[in-house]
């Protein structure tokens, strides 16, 4: 198990009121992501717990794209990847951001 944290600055704060959201189910052969609204307005912190070693550059690329596409300012995000592929991670991140924006 490899663990690291990636920090980024978003252009805007993520909309919505929801304090937290969970996407995916860790035991289902899929990854689990917890979103919490607890960072400074433009800060994004992503904690990654991954089963596969040596993919940090790919994670950095995925999170950079995610921050550009969803602008998730204020989010603290914890990922248990369960060996998921980068495209699944990005889809889950985008879905998590949508949940934070839409869920009341």
């Amino acid at each position, binding site marked *: 198990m490899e663990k690291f944290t990636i920090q980024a600055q978003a252009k805007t704060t993520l909309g919505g009121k929801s304090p937290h959201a969970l996407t995916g189910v860790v035991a289902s052969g899929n990854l689990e992501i917890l979103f919490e609204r607890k960072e400074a307005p433009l800060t994004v912190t992503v904690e990654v717990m991954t089963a596969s070693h040596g993919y940090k550059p*790919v994670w950095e*690329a*995925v999170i950079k794209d995610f921050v550009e*596409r969803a602008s998730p300012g204020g989010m603290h995000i914890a990922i248990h990847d369960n060996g998921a*592929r*980068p*495209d*699944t991670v*990005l*889809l889950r991140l*985008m*879905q998590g951001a*949508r*949940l934070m924006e*839409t869920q009341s």
Partner: protein
Amino acid sequence: MTDWIKQKKERARRLKEVVSLVSGKEVQPADVTALLERVICSGDRVCLEGDNQKQADFLAECLTQVDPSQVHDLHIVQSGLVLSEHLDLFRLGIARKLDFSYSGPQSAAIARALDQGKIELGAIHTYIELFARYFVDLTPNVALIAAVSADRKGNLYTGPNTEDTPTIVEATAYKNGIVIAQVNKIVDEVPRIDIPGDQIDFIVQAPKPFYVEPLFTRDPAAVTETQILMAMIALKGIYAEYRPRRLNHGIGFATAAIELLLPTYGEQLGLRGEVATHWALNPHPTLIPAIESGWVQQIHCFGSEVGMDRYMSARPDVYFIGHDGTLRSNRLLCQNAGLYACDMFIGSTLQIDLAGNSSTVTPDRIAGFGGAPNMGADAHGRRHVSEAWLKAGHEAAGSEGPLVRGRKLVVQMVETFGEGMKPAFVEELDSIALARKLGMPLAPVMIFGDDVTHIVTEEGIANLLLCRNADDVEQAIRGVAGYTPVGLARDRAKVEALRARGVIRRPEDLGIDLLQADRNLLAARSIRDLVTWSDGLYAPPSKFRNW
């Protein structure tokens, strides 16, 4: 003086040799090997019917038992090389040369045999290409075929898996060849005549029914959310944009996801009756919910599919059904329909390079082509127009006008990473290394880049019709290649410029709500759901039954 009837005399000579082994046209199973040794001569071209699905497996087994000192150097000309017996012919020295189309389960064994020099390879063809050569320079001397039943005159009922049989028999019987059919049962009267008896020389009731491979069954339970997202992108970015009514789907999970999304997401987009009404398609079980929801008017099939027969018989308004009440398929005609009468082919592949060329060859597997290259090719002989065809042509030309021809939509759907995190996008196709190793003058390419119009991945659509040069194409492909090395090496500024031009479209550009990319969007989430949709008429093969 020229002898103009040499072939006719040779045929008569061979038939005379086996008079003692037959009663009428009937041969006993135990006598088949002896019969084959007398009617097949060394150097003959032989078609041992191996279709995409149906296999003349008993005759294949008998052919492996002939004495190689009597019968050798055969030239095997058949579309599917899928049984281990087919490879045994080369291992045993009975056959030497091979022209084929598809190998599926034997793809690794063929690669090994080629490498060891056991097979002299003519060419790997597409289906209609090989069938075409049956009538020009690869006409079989002997055809060993399979059918469900025969009467004593040799009239054959092929059952729903008619597939290649009429084409093989036509080429062989009308050129003084010899045709031998294995059948599951010899009967007094066949339900319908698929092949007239005067084209059949011998029939044998095989000890067990011929083998049929279930090839087109995709379990909805295995469809992932990434595949659902890709299906949504395709439906909104391609089906809704171009409105292709006539089409063919490949057999992968991505297109199965589209089929399962037609009654849900497709309905939301208002596409029912507007797209995907007429098909050249194998009997995909995953299309059942769309058929039952009134999407589909008509389907012509290349072959059949295990478990679908009763369902199709009960839907004769949709499928091509004989007066006996069962499906009639025909690979040659359906491939031709896919080539000339369809506005779109959409299917998966294993590898795509920076010019959009795609291949399913890996260094140790030669799966052959099957039908995809014809489905996935623009037919330059097409002259009739449709909205989808013209729109694609106008996009490619960048103009309209009385001399601007249309284009077939050829869409490749790939997840950026395949099994075992293998990138689908590569700088160079593996097939090039294989061609180098085997000394092939042309590397096996499934679909050439100049025929591909769109590439769909989970990252979005690359519209190659709107690309104006090789650099556009390369960056458009890199721009949807995700986190593969090819994708990470993109020029971000160029990719954004292509996005502004609409060459690349992301889910957000298409207004796709990612929260909808969920398994609940599938019209059926299991094989059992498909059975329910079919009103209990679909009878899935046992390996797909998990209840």
